[in-house]
């Protein structure tokens, strides 16, 4: 899979991880180019449907990251998020979605190097797993002329 460049979407909160990623920048720490960040106000805002959409549209991996427990700018958004993730992750596993492709993390505004590390670990992991063809086959499934049978 040398020529395989994973597409990875990162859903992050504005106050901790986004700021943390900014710090990675200001500290000029280098990391893989495969990740694209989408900014949310809080991990509590991250809709599980968006994770599915990312896979639908061809993402090979997903990072979801926010404030450490007790650090949430909104006091408890991340606690709510955590509970949802716990359940949603179980469900995904049960329907056979490859949960190794979704990496959850807490990255604070002060953890610039951790962000770089999170990105690099994810990219390495996804490289090993390869493109998520299993899902994409279903997602990009050409609408069959006759869908029964």
């Amino acid at each position: 899979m040398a020529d395989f460049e994973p597409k990875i979407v990162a859903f992050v909160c504005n106050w901790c991880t986004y700021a943390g990623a900014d710090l990675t920048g200001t500290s000029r720490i280098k990391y893989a180019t495969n990740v694209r960040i989408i900014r949310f106000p809080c991990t509590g805002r991250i809709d599980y449907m968006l994770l599915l959409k990312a896979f639908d549209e061809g993402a090979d991996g997903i990072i979801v990251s926010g404030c450490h427990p007790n650090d949430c700018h909104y006091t408890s958004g991340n606690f709510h998020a955590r509970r949802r993730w716990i359940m949603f992750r179980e469900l995904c596993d049960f329907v056979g979605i490859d949960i190794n492709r979704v990496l959850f993390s807490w990255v604070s505004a002060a953890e610039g190097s951790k962000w770089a590390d999170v990105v690099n670990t994810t990219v390495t992991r996804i490289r090993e797993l390869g493109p998520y063809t299993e899902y994409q086959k279903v997602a990009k499934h050409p609408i069959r002329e006759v869908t029964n049978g």
Partner: protein
Amino acid sequence: MTIDKRIVRKEALEKLFEILKQNNRTIFAPVSKNGKTSFKITESYSSIEKDFIQTTQSSKESVFPRTEKILDFTKSKNSLDAKPFDILQVPEVILWGVRPCDAMGMGELSAIFNWDSKDEIYNSRLSKTTIIGFSCFKADESCFCTSVGGNPGNIEGSDILFTRLGESGDWLAEIITEKGVAIVAIAQDIFQKTENQDKNKYLAEVPVKFDRETIRKKLDAFFESEEWVEQSLKCIGCGACAYVCPTCACFDIQDEIHGKSGSRVRCWDSCGISQFTLHTSGHNPRAVQSQRWRQRIMHKFSYMPERLSVYGCTGCGRCSRACPVDMNILEHLISIQEVTL
């Protein structure tokens, strides 16, 4: 044309299946799974369900798929390039094991799809589908084809209709259309000449339960009846009845877009679902389930005969079997016939 009748020996039926496969036709035949029988692309004769009264879903899907592409498009900066679905792509299909009520349903679908404009995609699918019907030697209490102008051995809609000749296990084949003749042509020795046979004694008993003409006439004055409310109170408004129905043809148009390219697809819809008539404004002309239920019955037994001079029901009884809350169409039609205005 006078219908040519042939005998097909018990064991020869499988041969016919093989021959059709060799002529690389896509064959849809009834297959059972989770206790439900439905039409699936079938490779082997053995996998075909032989002992069933009726499939869960009708065979309409081969001519009117639940989801079908009608065009592809690509947007570029200030233009849009649309590529309509190429009807030449439609495959040659054999529908094997269709019950007469389903075959008859094709005619009713055709009436709908050719009512105002001619639906090219539908028509090409139908023209490329050969329907091999099998008469019913069994029926259940949901069946009422005989009340809606059909019967267990009805040839209407089939290209070839097989009727099992009792214990012998041999089959009477009625070659009804050109497509039927074409099949015989490629399997000459399977279709043997025969003296006239009376298939009726081998057919299932389906007593007549009501008279559709009476009902049609009655419905004209029935619109405001309380009966609709009575009947539909237990209806939970799903689309099961419409989706298993051989003649329901309502569809929704959806665009599936990925960036600059996408496809426009048509997919089944049902008048039983409240969103069906919901306006953007929030107004819903059919606000309650009784109005939706009324629409279903009126459409099949009043509007269709009126506008398309065909009825929208072939008595297959699928909706009654599929209904999660036991809305039984036969029961309701009978009570409509009996209730005094």
